[in-house]
């Protein structure tokens, strides 16, 4: 009887999302796979050394992992967790973006002041572009024409033309830029500055600065409010910003650039990923070694999920 009762429960649960959040654990050399329905870790997969950036191919048949200390990008079969092969990545790959052509990976080589372009089919490096010191943040415009690399010590966003694979503009931002995203139908570029404590919004057409967003978390000194990763909602009306050691995520109105809310999460919040319907947001909290689940509509943290040591990147597998 009990079993019979369980069946309708499973049927109800199963069609909800059946999706996963993949989290790289920088100091455990693993990936924790979180099931979005149960909000529990259902798999732990070994990787190369110091996994950070993580992204899936467009059809989700491959997952790319920056194994920073192995100096390689690993290509994994997400079904089996087997490493299929390594890609030449340049030294110390930290973060990358996959070009909309689903083929070219643009990789920030943190120790080398270089952005490396790798063809994932031929598995060859097709270009290396000199950028500033400690490149990290990577973004690609939806039409694939521009790739952005931000460099942490040079404090710039470098605008790379993907046709010529050369830098066409350099724009200064506040100290230690960490993450970049295109927004507003690709008319804006947003860049976070960890030590500067700001988000800078650029007009893509002119590369001119359009707005600068500052944060103030009650009871936290401004020095410790350090924006890192951020993600836009589907309608691009709202952006969630991880504020590092302030242990909060800010909710920003992407039209007015006003900060609307702060949500308390785990310690040193770093990057984040949405569930498929964008109703839940998963943040990686490096110091506390967990992932906070945020109810996007209510703007509340609803659960902490323990993962490995120093979770860094997060990616959705629908």
């Amino acid at each position: 009887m009990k079993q019979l009762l369980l069946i309708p429960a499973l049927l109800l649960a199963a069609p909800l999302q059946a999706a996963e959040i993949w989290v790289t654990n920088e100091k455990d050399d693993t990936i924790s796979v979180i099931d979005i329905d149960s909000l529990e870790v259902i798999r732990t997969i070994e990787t190369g050394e110091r996994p950070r950036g993580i992204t899936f191919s467009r059809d989700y048949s491959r997952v790319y992992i920056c194994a920073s200390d192995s100096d390689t990008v690993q290509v994994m079969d997400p079904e089996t967790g087997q490493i299929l092969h390594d890609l030449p990545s340049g030294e110390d790959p930290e973060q990358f973006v996959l070009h909309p052509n689903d083929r070219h990976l643009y990789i920030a080589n943190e120790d080398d002041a270089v952005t490396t372009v790798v063809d994932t089919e031929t598995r060859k490096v097709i270009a290396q572009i000199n950028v500033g010191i400690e490149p990290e943040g990577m973004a690609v415009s939806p039409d694939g024409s521009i790739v952005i690399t931000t460099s942490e010590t040079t404090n710039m966003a470098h605008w790379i033309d993907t046709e010529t694979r050369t830098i066409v503009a350099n724009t200064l931002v506040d100290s230690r830029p960490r993450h970049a995203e295109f927004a507003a139908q690709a008319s804006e570029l947003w860049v976070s500055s960890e030590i500067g404590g700001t988000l800078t919004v650029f007009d893509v057409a002119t590369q001119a600065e359009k707005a600068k967003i500052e944060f103030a978390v009650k009871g936290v000194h401004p020095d410790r409010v350090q924006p890192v990763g951020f993600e836009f909602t589907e309608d691009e009306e709202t952006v969630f910003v991880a504020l590092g050691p302030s242990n909060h995520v800010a909710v920003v109105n992407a039209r007015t650039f006003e900060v609307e809310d702060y949500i308390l999460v785990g310690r040193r919040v770093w990057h984040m990923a949405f569930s498929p319907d964008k109703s839940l947001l998963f943040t990686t909290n490096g110091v506390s070694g967990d992932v906070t689940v945020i109810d996007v509509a209510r703007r509340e943290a609803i659960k902490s999920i323990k993962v490995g040591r120093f979770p860094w990147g997060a990616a959705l597998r629908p």
Partner: protein
Amino acid sequence: MRRLCLYILGLILAAGAAPAGVDVPVIYLKQQVDRPPTLSNLDPVPRDEGESGARLGLADNQTTGGFLGHDYKLETVIVPAGGDPIPAARDALAQTPFLILDAPAATLLAIADLPQAQGAILFNTSSAATALRSAECRANLLHTLPTHQMRSDALMQFARARRWDTLALIAGTHPGDIAFAEALRASAAKFGLRLSAEKTWAFDADMRRNATQEVPLFTQELGKYDLLLIADELHDFGRYIPFNTWLPRPVAGSEGLVPAGWAPVVEQWGAAQLQSRFRDLAGRDMRPRDYAAWAAIRSLGEAVTRTGTADPAAIRAYLLSDRFELAGFKGRPLSFRHWNGQLRQPIPLVTPRAMAAQAPLDGYLHQRTELDTLGLDAPESACTAFP
């Protein structure tokens, strides 16, 4: 605030738009000093201490400068021990207003007081003397090396947090030992800790042979205490104290748990990248004076980048303003104290194998920034050269 942002934006655009090059020559001037002999030869002081930090900072600046049309150059001038640094300083000042100085306190003051140095920007990367940030401060002398007192305050915050309320001290007899011991005493009083016993280390025996026999007896006389402080800045005898004390007690100060401006075990906040860049360049670990020299040239670079000029008056104004912030790989932005030109910075508390804590510790509050719980605060500083 918004107006300020717009103003900065204007500056940035001006800097980005200006195609005209900006030349920023920097001279690193080192006065060599003879070091007294120490009991152990395990840790020689590298000949390029400080200089390699400046070279790394230069490389960082050059990369940024390359995108902006700013050209940084670094020349090193070394005055041998016993030589007169003043002619070298005059020569240097004839070439550039930007000097990074590695010299004793008296030499720093002599250089800062040269007529040629008025209006220049000099960085002290070598002297921890509190007086240089107080009554003896100079308007043209900024300090990137933390003072003895910033370090001792950091240690006392930790002792207080651990409730190690009763302290004992063993101090050497060299000037650096005496100055650090003085700072430890002042910091103990500042944070409400009791220094119950003090002894001076004036032995001339070779401790590698008889530390186990001498140190227990020597420390027995200190009575009861929670934490044993060592003031031995030359690293002469301190290394033989831990584990040989009469009472089983932790050791801190110049040995054991060390408050340091920088150390190879600092790895958080992206510091691992700075450490590996330094090791690639110098073939050794980065030391506090390397960090101070790196911070000096990077501060200069940051100011040139943001203002688009190499005019020393404009650079000085920017460095001392609240717009300046240096990403110093210590977890929060670094800035200069506008009342005495000291770079405010967190102080790591380190053992040879790990960072145990970093000051300011949680709970030590300050109306301006918690970083100002370390070292001379504005009301305590007798400096009047910084209006």
